[in-house]
């Protein structure tokens, strides 16, 4: 092949700025390259040094998170985190954002978010077995909200349902602060064998680099480059930067990859996510300490006349890159052809330490791999923080006219109503192992063919985090831990998805820093490390940013499925016991927001030691099969938690009047942390209460099951049927009123 250099690109300051590189970053590039880059090289640096790929604002702080523990097989830094489940099984999981694309095109944005996170998981050799999603939308009244909810939910379902992986849980919030910046965070969990995990390090020279999956098109090549007309010949039609997902191909890709993995011919494998071919190639080379030479002539292409620049930056979906054992290409190709997928050898590894890209006989890029990764900019951005707001005393907050009236209002409100409309659009049962469907505290998915299961959930309460980022983030970690505990699981580890506004504003950076501190503390005390994560910054429009939203995905294990509970109240005559200290904290609660006129003050404080003691006690009772159901107390407080148990089990509750010294409404609606409700039979109640005393755990019998209504004394009653229709009504009614 004759080799020549590409035409001089005329790298102007404008072009550099359009590629998102700051002048000093460009200087660093020049030092690494030793000469002016080609356009393709500029494009490569631009994507690799983007916030998204390089974590330049967050890396410094992320390093402080606790990431180890005896259960951890792989912490952050690979495609996904891995925890040990015993018996040679492990769980591979991660959560990732697809916020901006979902705002632009909700269906495809959300769908490709799901596809992307699944690829991160099966890249590592795991079969995806559960998807979850954490969604934040603007105010229901906002003109775009309904359209966005509709598209995002349909897109998540459309992708996951077709691939055949159950979507088993998640959360949904509405808040005007997300009007112009919705958040779509998708989580995937897969199962693998501990001796069959695949990594991305391409170790060894002269090995074939193989491209599989869909063809490359001009999808998602970024706006910066779109602005320059010279890259776009048919400029009469501005090319959409939106990617379209193809779940059918993803399903085939999963099956083909898992089939090939069983053949033991893969040395390294990496999905093509953000910055597609560029990041997958350079990451594989960097981690393996090798060089890679690519010949783009062999890349399967969907469109004619694609340039090297376009192919390297394309974000076409459903593609993977692999390094194979030499000689295994024909076997591998047979597998991919059986599944109807493209397969092409597009390069080889070498020991040059450089990423060299050829196209049509021209060397389009020649970059030292290590510098591309290690010399990426790293910022310790300035940050400021304010002292947390004062604690609101319950006495300052008006009681409601009626307790049951307030309960009904909260449970019928967009923030407190049932999310059934959402999860019924997700196939949550496919694969035949969903033990706890959506609607419980944590989803429970059996490990196929065994009597063990994983449990998973997603949580964060953005209003708490906005008021006090450290405490709010601590709370988010604790809430996932509690939700896992409430189904009888032993919490193992988390993935985070940190969504913030512009980090170049010191107060936003301060929120980020405080969140890291809160998360660190919670993970340490609970021995519940972070094994994977994702950061999404610049969620901001016209200077208005989102509230800090560190979504936490928790994963736990149930070693014996006969020893678990759900939250549905079971038998008339049984007693409900509330565990944990009652302080009547009303600041930043749903009660304050919905009934008392607006949010104010400090969020409920989290005592991690109390959290651990109470949770461990509940889990012990579940394992002893000593209780019939359990539910944690979260949004809406004690009364909402009781009502949820009653609705789930379709059994009424005679709730005992509160006789302590705090205002009653603070007891019913306070969102005190580290609390659970458990259902016990009358025969065992005394002994269980005795054990709470021995453990110095506050506990109180709050009601007796029976009948078909909720009541507190004579005056306060509410028919279950009435509450149920109020709780179920809002979502479908809202979505069906003037559809878009």
């Amino acid at each position, binding site marked *: 092949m004759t080799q020549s250099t590409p035409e001089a690109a005329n790298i102007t300051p404008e072009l550099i700025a359009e590629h998102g590189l700051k002048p000093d970053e460009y200087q660093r590039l020049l030092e690494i390259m030793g000469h002016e880059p080609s356009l393709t090289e500029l494009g490569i640096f631009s994507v690799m040094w983007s916030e998204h790929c390089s974590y330049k604002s967050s890396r410094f702080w992320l390093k402080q998170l606790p990431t180890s523990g005896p259960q951890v097989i792989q912490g952050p830094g690979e495609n996904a985190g891995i925890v040990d489940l015993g018996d040679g099984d492990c769980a591979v999981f991660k959560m990732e954002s697809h916020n901006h694309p979902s705002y632009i095109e909700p269906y495809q944005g959300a769908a490709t978010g799901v596809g992307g996170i699944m690829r991160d998981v099966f890249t590592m050799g795991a079969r995806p077995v559960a998807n979850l999603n954490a969604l934040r939308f603007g105010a229901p009244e906002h003109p775009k909200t309904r359209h966005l909810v509709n598209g995002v939910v349909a897109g998540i379902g459309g992708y996951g349902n077709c*691939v055949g992986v159950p979507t088993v849980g998640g959360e949904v919030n509405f808040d005007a602060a997300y009007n112009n910046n919705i958040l779509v965070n998708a989580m995937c969990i897969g199962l693998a064998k501990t001796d069959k995990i695949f990594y991305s390090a391409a170790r060894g020279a002269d090995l074939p680099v193989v491209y599989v999956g869909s063809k490359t098109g001009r999808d998602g090549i970024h706006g910066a480059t779109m602005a320059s007309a010279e890259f776009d010949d048919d400029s009469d039609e501005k090319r959409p930067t939106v990617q379209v997902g193809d779940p*059918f191909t993803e399903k085939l890709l999963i099956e083909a990859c898992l089939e090939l993995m069983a053949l033991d011919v893969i040395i390294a494998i990496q999905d093509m996510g953000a910055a597609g071919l560029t990041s997958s190639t350079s990451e594989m080379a960097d981690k393996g300490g090798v060089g890679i030479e690519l010949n783009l002539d062999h890349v399967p292409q969907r469109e004619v006349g694609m340039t090297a620049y376009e192919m390297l930056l394309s974000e076409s979906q459903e593609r993977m890159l692999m390094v194979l054992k030499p000689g295994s290409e024909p076997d591998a190709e047979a597998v991919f052809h059986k*599944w109807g997928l493209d397969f092409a050898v597009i390069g080889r590894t070498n020991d040059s330490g450089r990423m060299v890209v050829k196209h049509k006989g021209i060397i389009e890029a020649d970059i030292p791999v290590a510098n591309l990764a290690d010399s990426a900019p790293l910022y310790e951005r300035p940050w400021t923080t304010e002292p947390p707001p004062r604690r609101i005393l319950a006495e300052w907050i008006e009681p409601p006219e009626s307790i049951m009236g307030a309960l009904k209002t909260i449970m019928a409100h967009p923030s407190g109503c049932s999310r059934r409309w959402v999860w019924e659009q997700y*196939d949550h049962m496919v694969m*035949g192992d*969903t033990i706890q469907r959506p609607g419980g505290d944590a989803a429970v998915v059996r490990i196929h063919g065994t009597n063990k299961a994983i449990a998973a959930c997603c949580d964060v309460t953005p209003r708490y985090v906005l008021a006090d980022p450290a405490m709010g983030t601590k709370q988010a970690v604790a809430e996932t831990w509690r939700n896992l505990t409430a189904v009888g699981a032993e919490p193992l580890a988390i993935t985070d998805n940190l969504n913030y506004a512009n980090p170049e504003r010191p107060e936003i950076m301060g929120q980020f820093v405080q969140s890291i501190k809160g998360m660190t503390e919670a993970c340490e005390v609970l021995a519940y490390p972070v094994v994977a994560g994702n950061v999404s910054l610049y969620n901001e429009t016209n200077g208005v940013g989102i509230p800090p939203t560190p979504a936490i995905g928790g994963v736990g294990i149930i070693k014996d499925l006969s020893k678990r509970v759900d939250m549905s109240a079971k038998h008339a005559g049984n007693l409900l016991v509330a565990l944990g200290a009652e302080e009547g904290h009303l600041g930043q609660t749903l009660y304050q927001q919905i009934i008392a006129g607006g949010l104010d003050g400090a969020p409920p404080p989290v005592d991690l030691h109390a959290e651990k003691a109470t949770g461990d006690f509940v889990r012990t009772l579940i394992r002893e099969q000593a209780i019939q159901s359990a539910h944690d107390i979260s949004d809406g407080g004690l009364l909402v938690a009781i009502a949820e148990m009653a609705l789930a089990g379709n059994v009424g509750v005679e709730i005992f009047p509160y006789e302590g010294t705090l205002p009653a409404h603070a007891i019913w609606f306070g969102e005190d942390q580290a609390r659970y409700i458990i259902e016990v039979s009358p025969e065992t109640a005394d002994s269980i209460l005795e054990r709470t005393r021995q453990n110095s755990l506050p506990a109180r019998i709050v009601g007796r099951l029976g009948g078909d209504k909720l009541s507190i004394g004579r005056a306060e009653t509410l028919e279950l049927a009435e509450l149920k229709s109020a709780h179920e009504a809002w979502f479908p009614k809202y979505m069906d009123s003037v559809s878009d």
Partner: protein
Amino acid sequence: MKSTVIVFPGSNCDRDMKVALEKATGSTVDMAWHGDTDLKPSDLIVLPGGFSYGDYLRPGAMAAKSPIMANVIARAKSGTPILGICNGFQVLCETGLLPGVLMRNASLRYVCRDVHVKVEQPETPFTLAYQKGAILRIPVAHHDGNYFADADQLDRLEGEDQVVVRYCNEDGNVAASANPNGSQRNIAGICDGSRRIVGMMPHPERLFESALGGCDGLGVLDSIKQAVNTAVAH
């Protein structure tokens, strides 16, 4: 006994069906690939749920034309019992083995939830373990389950007792409110004139153990066992 599950690219309830069948019949199940041109002898064939070919074009359309289906159609004609669940039902309609077609749900939304169905035709190999009129709680999970046929065709189905299951309320009332997809006359499943070919939208294989939340689907599996044992004994 031998049973076979056909796997199309995009099938995703194939494993669930295999597990359920193995549990029901106590023998291993063959998995036949869509591209195969020969099909081993089998006492019964199941077309599983999922999204064959992504449900692109029309659900079941491309699967109906895949190489293996020529064999399945031949077996059907020679009397082998065939069950199509969900996407499998759509495939059976597209091949013409069953009349009518499954259109997009009236809500235009995918629906995954437990529904109730009433068994109207217990004399098929897949429902004989149920009493006529039995009410089952069973999951559906589909985007295109809205059964359509013209009025004559529907009358013929009714007249020949080919409606196998119908959506109903918990108390057995066949009401519009119990219909998850807008299907004509609340039809959830039908059979052909020989009653050996059955298609239904609900997923019995998802509800055959209490760990999964119920056992009402077990009857379909018990029926299969009985039907096959009787057939083998003859």
